[in-house]
């Protein structure tokens, strides 16, 4: 019998719900009165949850936003203390939750590996022993001594993930925020996680990606309104969860979100070619040529405008925008973002239109796909990321190679 690594018994966490204008400073206290200091009521974010995770087992946790998944994860990670019940951990606990939490942009990739490695629970000596492995995993051998501010979004992600994954955990907590990144690298990370499991690590994966949970997990837990709605075989649990979700979705159907179909007619499906929390959304993306009309095909050397419409119902601070143009699923020819281009946007709220004007694209002929993303300030997660969702053709240049710069041949 495999050893129980994580034993959760009747776990409960209660939060106080405060007055919306709860005074947070003494001045406000004086102005608004002390009465608003008292919580209006208390509610259980998580209650009566019990389960165990044995060595070599991967448990997938599903549930809607606000169901208590994150609180559960924090209780498991011992960064929050339960009000009821207990969590017993037998083994080294590590988290793959937030990448790059200690990253300093002015320091080199190498220095940041040390910082994030130590923050993730390794000693300096342990990081040094794994340094080469981490750099190789991140595929950053060439640029490891450059400051991280010169890195692309993808490079930062690889750096963060490679560091976070070299921690030899015995209990591993994984948050879904890791869903963004190019597919090849995601695959590599999944392989590493599978290796941990094979070595006897107990893994808890919280994700919205049901297919991923079905494919990876041995057991699944469905959290609904803070309680364990169902626990057991992933196929069964997910079937129940899906049925409930469908019912829920039917209830408030058209009112909330109409399925997004791009102007090119491509449907965006969450967790297929669309990722993110959707707290703020990219509601429309148009590719325009130099004359401002819809660009289905452009001549090599012409410019391209990517027009992105964003809807942020609640203001988001210091958002980062990224755009990439690639050919096929693997290769990005262009990968730019506002941080690398030193564009600072303090807040974004309501409906906003953003244009990225690429003055000329000297690309080889072929079909190209555009990915656009709206990320949080630290690149920890995406609000909305449309992967390879918009395509256009480049014509009038050779098909071979990647670039077709303006050129002339001179015969001496």
């Amino acid at each position: 019998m495999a050893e129980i690594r994580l034993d959760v018994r009747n776990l409960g966490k209660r939060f106080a719900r405060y007055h919306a204008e709860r005074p947070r400073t003494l001045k406000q206290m004086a102005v608004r009165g002390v009465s608003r200091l008292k919580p209006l009521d208390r509610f259980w974010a998580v209650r009566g949850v019990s389960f165990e995770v044995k060595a070599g087992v991967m448990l997938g946790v599903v549930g809607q936003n606000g169901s208590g998944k994150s609180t559960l994860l924090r209780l498991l990670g011992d960064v929050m203390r339960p009000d009821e019940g207990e969590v017993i951990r037998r083994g080294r606990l590590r988290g793959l939750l937030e990448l790059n939490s200690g990253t300093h942009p002015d320091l080199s990739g190498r220095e940041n590996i040390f910082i994030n490695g130590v923050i993730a629970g390794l000693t300096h000596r342990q990081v040094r022993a794994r340094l080469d492995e981490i750099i190789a995993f991140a595929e950053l051998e060439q640029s490891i001594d450059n400051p991280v501010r010169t890195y692309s979004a993808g490079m930062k992600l690889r750096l963060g993930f490679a560091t976070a994954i070299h921690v030899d955990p015995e209990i591993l907590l994984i948050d879904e925020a890791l869903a963004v990144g190019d597919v090849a690298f995601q695959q590599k990370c999944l392989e590493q996680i599978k290796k941990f499991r094979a070595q006897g690590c107990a893994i808890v994966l919280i994700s919205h990606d049901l297919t991923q949970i079905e494919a990876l997990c041995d057991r699944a837990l469905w959290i609904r309104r803070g309680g364990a709605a169902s626990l057991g075989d992933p196929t069964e649990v997910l079937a129940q969860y899906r049925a409930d979700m469908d019912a829920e979705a039917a209830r408030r159907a058209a009112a909330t979100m109409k399925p997004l179909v791009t102007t090119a007619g491509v449907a965006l499906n969450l967790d297929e070619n669309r990722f993110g929390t959707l707290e703020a959304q990219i509601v429309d993306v148009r590719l325009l040529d130099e004359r401002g009309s819809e660009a289905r095909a452009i001549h090599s050397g012409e410019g391209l405008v990517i027009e992105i419409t964003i809807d942020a119902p609640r203001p988001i601070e210091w958002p980062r925008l990224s755009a990439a143009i690639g050919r096929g699923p693997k290769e990005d020819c262009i990968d730019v973002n506002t941080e690398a281009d030193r564009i600072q946007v303090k807040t974004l709220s309501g409906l906003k239109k953003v244009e990225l004007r690429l003055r000329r694209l000297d690309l080889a002929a072929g079909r190209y796909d555009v990915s656009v993303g709206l990320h949080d300030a630290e690149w920890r997660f995406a609000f909305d990321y449309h992967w390879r969702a918009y395509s256009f053709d480049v014509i009038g240049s050779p098909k071979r190679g990647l670039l077709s710069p303006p050129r002339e041949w001179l015969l001496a």
Partner: protein
Amino acid sequence: MRIGLAALRSGRRAFGPASAPKDQDRSRSAGRRSGAPRAGLQAIGHDWSHFRDVVLILVRRNFVSRYRNTAIGMAWALATPLLFLLVFYFVFKVIINISIDKYASFVYIGILAWTWLQAAVTDGTAAITSNPNLVSQPGFPVAALPIVSVTANLFSLAVAFPVLLALLIVEGARPGFAILWLPAIVVVQYALTLGLCFFAAALNVAARDMQHIVPILLQIGYYLTPIFYSGDKVPGHYRAILRINPMYGLLESYRAVLIDGRIPDLAGLAATLAFSLVLLVTAASYFRKASYRFLEDL
């Protein structure tokens, strides 16, 4: 400082990182039972070296990020206190003609020691609130953050130390063997500052006012501490009140050791140490209790 922390080590959230193999850890409902059955010495060894590495790496990050990408780099750590020294010297020595011997050394010691306290407490107040992503990291010892504030600012001070020595020599001070007492005084101030930082850091999570109150208190403290004037000039009964300020005695000790080459007032230093340790232990235990609620308020 070690004594104070060692007594409180059982709180894993605040002080202990993730456990070593076979170390079983329980977090039960608050109040009924807290703390974890510790595993062998190995686990404690790993915890300590990890804790130390967290402090060291964050101190380094703090230090490098502060001075890299600035035109004169680390020279800023020198330039700032020197500028203050020049102003004070001009105002009090040249204009007011204050009668304190070796006035440049006198003021410079005051500026350096006070800057350490002030910068550390200012950083310490924001240590938790400005690092929510570290606080939510499983196994991250949050108690490292206030320690980083105090330690990082001690290093900035160390950069300025050679200038102080030069100043002492130029002004004809003879530190002698009494300088061996210097580390002891620094340790006392470290404990004092760390205690203040633990309090300020934890309080600031619940009431963000601390960010505004702390600078005011520090400004008041600046004038009520004999930095640019001598405590001897303060009338007797006021002096007794000003002496409650632990920095008063610490500055006197620094000056005794560095300028006069005397052994500091040991009884006074011991009293300050005792006070600082009590403060540190109380603050650290408050911090530990509060640390489980940090994420609820961030």
